[in-house]
């Protein structure tokens, strides 16, 4: 007992910068951000980090959040889940950070979410897709400011059905890890609702980071499926697309569905042919049909390009959503708290009720902490304007249609989707925006 009191004392000393008592505002708002700066996923982590630094500068220049400047500390998710956990706790219990943006990797989200709950600090899951984390357990302190795997996959299925209504066979080639496996499960279960007689001719799961898809490609050429799905990302996706291109796989008439292609388009340059169905993991794209000309967005794109030499990709937008969401949530909480600085649970509470807008349509948060974010999909198109493919025939699939309702499990929900939903494909909810 005595130990505990000493303990408590030291904690409060350590945390004096932002006291647990929700009274006077702290000197600065310390936030911790976990992102990949090493390993294959740094493809996403590094641009997102750049975006975070950029946006935090802007926000601070504009007076920060509720008049408090933000100071961010970054953790490398590449050091592995266990070290991440240590570092995470160090930030919270030593540095007195009470707001964490974590993580990119779904595996890491699974690690940190329960810890945040135990430490009673706010954790914004800013990029990870796994729907399970919020469906299997109800959290008080954990929210997600973007869609999840279910939203992404169901939306992709609907878009596919709109673009290519009749097909009989499908083959999948996904990375062999949780995302690759889960996304396929959601995708095929959803597809079976609309096409009960769909034939899966090949399920291939080359290992994460595989460097040679030659055999898989040969097999696809031999099988000649109507649809080829791959939810791969990063170097794996690049390699797959390039090898497929070199082997003439794209010319064989199969429709490719690559839900994460948006993040590779600029890198892949002319290796991407026209006519591939591509996703953006949410409602954002630097040529967004509705916000591309919005000055705020334009400024963001220009600044980001100047800073990193590349156009923003989805992780940078997810980072933006997390930060904007955080700001909106804090301000709402401060208001609700009668102008006083809010405690993490108050912010988390506010974030569950808020609506906010980053660089796409408005995002609505649900009471389970899940964000309802529309899904942008399109078909690749080559244009003289850019040395790489862009998205055409873009559709913004409303999240409400394709997200598992609160309290239900995606695995069972997708199987129960009403086939009548296919009707919306022709409504103007599914209006296509051409590339201009």
């Amino acid at each position, binding site marked *: 007992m005595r130990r505990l009191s000493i303990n408590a004392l030291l904690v409060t000393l350590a945390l004096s910068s932002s006291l647990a008592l929700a009274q006077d505002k702290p000197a600065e708002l310390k936030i911790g951000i976990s992102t990949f*700066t*090493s*390993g*294959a996923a*740094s*493809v996403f*982590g*590094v641009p997102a980090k750049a975006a975070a630094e950029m946006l935090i500068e802007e926000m601070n220049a504009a007076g920060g959040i509720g008049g408090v400047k933000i100071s961010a500390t970054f953790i490398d998710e590449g050091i592995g889940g266990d070290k991440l956990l240590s570092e995470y706790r160090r930030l919270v219990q030593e540095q007195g950070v009470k707001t964490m943006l974590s993580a990119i990797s779904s595996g890491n989200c699974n690690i940190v979410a329960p810890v945040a709950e135990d430490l009673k600090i706010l954790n914004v899951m800013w990029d990870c897709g796994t729907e399970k984390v919020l469906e299997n357990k109800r959290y008080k302190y954990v929210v997600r400011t973007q869609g999840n795997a279910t939203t992404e996959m169901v939306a992709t299925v609907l878009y596919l059905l709109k673009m290519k209504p009749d097909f009989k066979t499908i083959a999948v080639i996904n990375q*062999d890890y949780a995302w690759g496996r889960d996304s396929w499960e959601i995708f095929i279960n959803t597809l079976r609702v609309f096409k009960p007689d769909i034939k899966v001719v*090949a*399920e*291939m*799961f*080359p*290992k994460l*980071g595989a*460097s*040679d898809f*030659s*055999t*898989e490609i*040969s*097999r696809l*050429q*031999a099988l000649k499926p109507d649809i080829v799905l791959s939810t791969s990302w*990063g*170097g*794996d996706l*690049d*390699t797959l697309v*390039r*090898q497929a291109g*070199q*082997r*003439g*796989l794209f010319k064989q008439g199969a429709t490719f569905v690559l839900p994460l292609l948006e993040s590779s388009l600029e*890198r892949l340059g002319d*290796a991407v042919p026209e006519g591939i169905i591509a996703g953006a993991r949410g409602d954002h794209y630097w040529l967004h049909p509705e916000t591309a000309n919005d000055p705020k967005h334009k400024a963001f794109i220009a600044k980001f390009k100047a800073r990193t030499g590349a156009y923003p990709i989805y992780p940078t937008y997810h980072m933006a959503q997390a930060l904007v969401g955080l700001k909106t949530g804090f301000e709402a909480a401060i208001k609700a708290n009668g102008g006083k600085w809010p405690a993490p649970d108050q912010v988390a509470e506010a974030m569950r009720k808020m609506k906010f807008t980053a660089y796409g349509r408005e995002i609505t948060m649900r009471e389970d902490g899940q964000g309802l974010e529309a899904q942008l999909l399109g078909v690749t198109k080559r244009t003289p304007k850019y040395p790489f493919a862009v998205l055409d025939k873009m559709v913004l699939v409303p999240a409400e249609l394709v997200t598992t309702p609160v309290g239900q499990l995606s695995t069972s929900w997708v199987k129960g989707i009403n086939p009548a939903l296919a009707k919306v494909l022709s409504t103007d909810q599914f209006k296509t925006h051409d590339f201009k």
Partner: protein
Amino acid sequence: MDASLIVLALMDGVSYAALLFLVALGLTLIFGVMRILNIAHGSLYAWGGYFAATLGLAITQFGLPAWLGLPALFVAALVIGGLLGTLLEWALLRRILDKDPILQLLVTFAAFMVLEDLQRLIWGTQPVFVSDVVNQLGTLQVVGVTYTRYQLLVLPAVAVAAFFGLNWFLNRTALGRQVTAVTHHREMATAMGVNTHRVMGLTIAIGGALGALGGALASPTTSFTPGIGADMMVLSFAVVATAGLGQIGGAALAALMIGLARSFAVYLMPEVEVLMPYLIMVGVLLLRPEGLFSTVAARRI
């Protein structure tokens, strides 16, 4: 699985085995001479690939003739492999020859970690990839399936050339014989007046270049990302161990076994594809503790 699929599996297996063999060849050669299993060899593969890509980009940027692409790959391999290899040998390996084998392994492991980060600092984290070479060479049809000439002709050709070239060098040339002598019995070779340091320097340069060549030849078809070295490392371990350390012919066969097993697995039971190299390695080692081709020499007492 009908005949045509078997043909396909063979094609893919062989072209994959070719790359694997080149990397493993370097590893096993270096082990033969230095008795050190160089874990940093994986980084040589990665660096070779990255540097080749850099050269490829340069060629397009400075509008140099496109046919330079293919030779550039070899240049890249020689430069990186030679330089990095020699640097490794000079800075580390030659200084740990008489150390405990465990420490030797650890030092190369450390070198691997260092190179891994340096590579990220130099080439960043975005996937790197230059494929003009492949596109120039064009494609050909096999049982109705398109293959690139590059993977079907160039890769195996290079592997075979490397194999025979190295054998010729080791058995026919004076310098090569010295290398062989050191491989068989370092002390005796030194006693016979072979300049062991020179031989080692040479070997690791060649071995390194082979590792880098594997990477360079992979770069036109593979996106290079951080961490790509570690995977190739374990795979070439598997090849070398299966073959028996220092066994060049063995490495060729082991690489083929693993390459084919892998490609057939993709057709027959994709789930075990990743397992194949290790299953083969375990299986072989359980039956032949020293690998396929080396024999247990009874200790002279």
